[in-house]
């Protein structure tokens, strides 16, 4: 009985998501939903490197920007179709992530955090100053929508909100399949092992550089994908979007959602995107309250909304969280397992 109730809840949630545009909601809310989907990709991307591998990156906004700019520029200047430009945008973000990841991923903790912060700033400043290509602070207006796809019997066009919603939703669902496959396999285990103890992981035969760069590049690829979708949806981009502030927003979505889980970042991006939108009416008080909320939530929900879900035993949560557990939240010393950095082997 209890089980059926939970199934029903999960089922109706899925149906709501699938039929959202036809539930009579205002287009404005559809807009928020689309932004949430894009943000979910960003938060999932960060989750790979920060949630699973334990290396916090503040460069996600930069990869978001690289993906976005590459896609938009290819479409605007080379007149390439979105369907080709987007993969190239993703490839570009991934490639740069590999190049930057190989030297910086040796860094630990805050050292890595701040160097990714620095990298993000460098990318932003390049977008801002490399005027001949990026048009600098003026941004890129007039980006076309993804080209229509002809399926023989019908043509799928992507210039409406509803179409954009389904495009983004489809992409997210496909990503989720591959994402959970990867996380629930040898690769995911290797990443979590690295988070637990790098040295032991290395001694177990895990190539640290390879897996860390893999996670970093995978996260960047998702950000690049989000960037391409963003450019194709908003159709105007400028360097102001790809700032440290954005990187922090992504981080907040991931952590408040519940890092190291799959449902967490998605929950986080939906809730935070919606919260930030609706809180706009609070004007000056919006960010005061938001800041305070961030602090309070993290204090009382240290494993995020996903933790709340699992804690209340919600089937929906378990369904997505599958076999993995939320990241640990206490540093409390486990018996005899000492701090990995300084201890003796």
């Amino acid at each position, binding site marked *: 009985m209890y089980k059926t109730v939970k199934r029903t809840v999960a089922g109706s949630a899925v149906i709501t998501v699938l039929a959202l545009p036809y539930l009579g909601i205002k287009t404005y809310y559809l807009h928020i939903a689309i932004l949430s989907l894009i943000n979910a990709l960003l938060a999932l991307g960060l989750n790979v490197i920060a949630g699973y591998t334990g290396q916090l990156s503040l460069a996600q906004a930069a990869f978001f920007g690289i993906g976005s700019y590459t896609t938009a520029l290819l479409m605007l200047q080379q007149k390439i179709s979105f369907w080709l430009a987007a993969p190239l945008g993703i490839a570009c973000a991934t490639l740069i992530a590999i190049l930057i990841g190989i030297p910086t991923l040796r860094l630990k903790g805050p050292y890595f955090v701040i160097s990714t912060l620095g990298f993000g700033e460098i990318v932003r400043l390049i977008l801002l100053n490399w005027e001949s290509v990026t048009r*600098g602070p003026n*941004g890129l*207006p007039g980006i076309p929508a993804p080209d229509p796809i002809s399926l023989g019997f019908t043509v799928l066009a992507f210039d*409406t909100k509803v179409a954009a919603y389904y495009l983004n939703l489809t992409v997210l669902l496909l990503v989720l399949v591959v994402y959970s496959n990867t996380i629930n396999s040898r690769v995911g285990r290797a990443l979590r092992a690295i988070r637990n103890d790098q040295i032991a992981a290395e001694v177990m035969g895990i190539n640290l550089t390879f897996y860390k760069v893999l996670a970093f590049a995978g996260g960047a690829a998702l950000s690049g994908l989000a960037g391409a979708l963003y450019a194709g949806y908003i159709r105007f981009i400028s360097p102001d*979007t790809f700032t440290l502030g954005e990187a922090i927003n992504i981080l907040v979505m991931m952590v408040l959602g519940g890092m190291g889980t799959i449902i967490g970042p998605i929950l986080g991006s939906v809730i935070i995107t919606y919260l930030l939108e609706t809180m706009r009416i609070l004007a*000056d008080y*919006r960010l005061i309250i938001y800041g305070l909320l961030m602090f309070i939530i993290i204090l009382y929900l240290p494993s995020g909304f996903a933790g709340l879900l699992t804690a209340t035993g919600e089937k929906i949560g378990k369904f997505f969280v599958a076999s993995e557990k939320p990241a640990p939240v206490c540093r409390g010393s486990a018996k005899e397992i000492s701090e990995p950095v300084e201890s003796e082997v």
Partner: protein
Amino acid sequence: AGCGSSASQGTKTAPIKFGVIGPYTGPNAKPGQSMKQGVLLAVEEINKAGGIKGRMLEPIFEDDASVPAQSVSATEKLITKDEVAFLIGTFNSSTTLADMKIIDREKVPMLVPIAVAIEITESGNKWVFRNCATNPMQATQLMTYIFNNTKQRKFAIIHENTDYGKGLATASAAFIKEKGGEVITETYSIGDTDFYAQLTKVKNYEPDAIIICGNLSEGSQITRQIKELGIKAQLYGYGGLSSYDYNNIAGGSNEGLIATSYFESNSPNPLAQNFVKAYKAKFGVDPDMFAAAIYEAVYIAKAAMEKMSDQKDIASFRSELRNALAATKDLPGVQGPTTFDSKGQAVKQVMIVQWHNGQKKILFPTN
């Protein structure tokens, strides 16, 4: 697209809703506040005088914090949730450019009173109307003044690294080069506080004049640090450097600085006089140029709506308003008359003022 066309805008007595998008929080919160006040004053006056054919005006303010993505969301909300008749905004060019895609798709007219990037009216979007001078207009007017009235031909430009500052710097530099002058260009980011490095370079260049393209906060520190470094060159600035807020934090370093201004409270224009009086009575301070520009924009919309016939639904209201706006010609306003050209751009004359003992002297237009 999918929004239900509720008839509320069409009924004869329902208020006419319009959206005002601006940075009420974030780095430009201060001009954002002026924008809000300018709108509130105009709406109060219009409604007190009976509204528009009996219908009241109802502004809805949405914050964009100067971030394009937020501005897009605000626009989406105003158009599809609040179903406003038209929009006024925004402060930044980037946010305006981001919003323009939506107004084009949803077919909603937008008045742009402050953002100055040239693309806004050059991109062929027929729903935008701008009642302020663009970057090149402003730069050309200041540079013409300099070349006509002084012998200064060697310039240093220091600009904020945003679409606003960069647009002004590029236009100014282009003008100087075309006229055979010399110029170097330095830049800084919003939030920077120390300009010694750039200014030391400028000092060694020994320019006749320094042109500052930026906002008041950094601008005040630049002029102060110019004085600290003992640089002796004539200072020029755009927009923000003609405000009293700038004067208050410049600590006297603005003595002799010449700046452009859209609006002066001691302007002889009688509309402006009335506006200044009313604004001061309501808010206790002198209006700045942002308040004036947006105040004027509300009145432009009012004039256009008064020319319209009664509309049944919101979509035709919006499209007819667009046509009425496009026909605006020689409409008097606090910043001078407005006529929209085929691109929706009004030709606006800026003023040129000079600081002296914390007061401004109008150098141009002379009368």
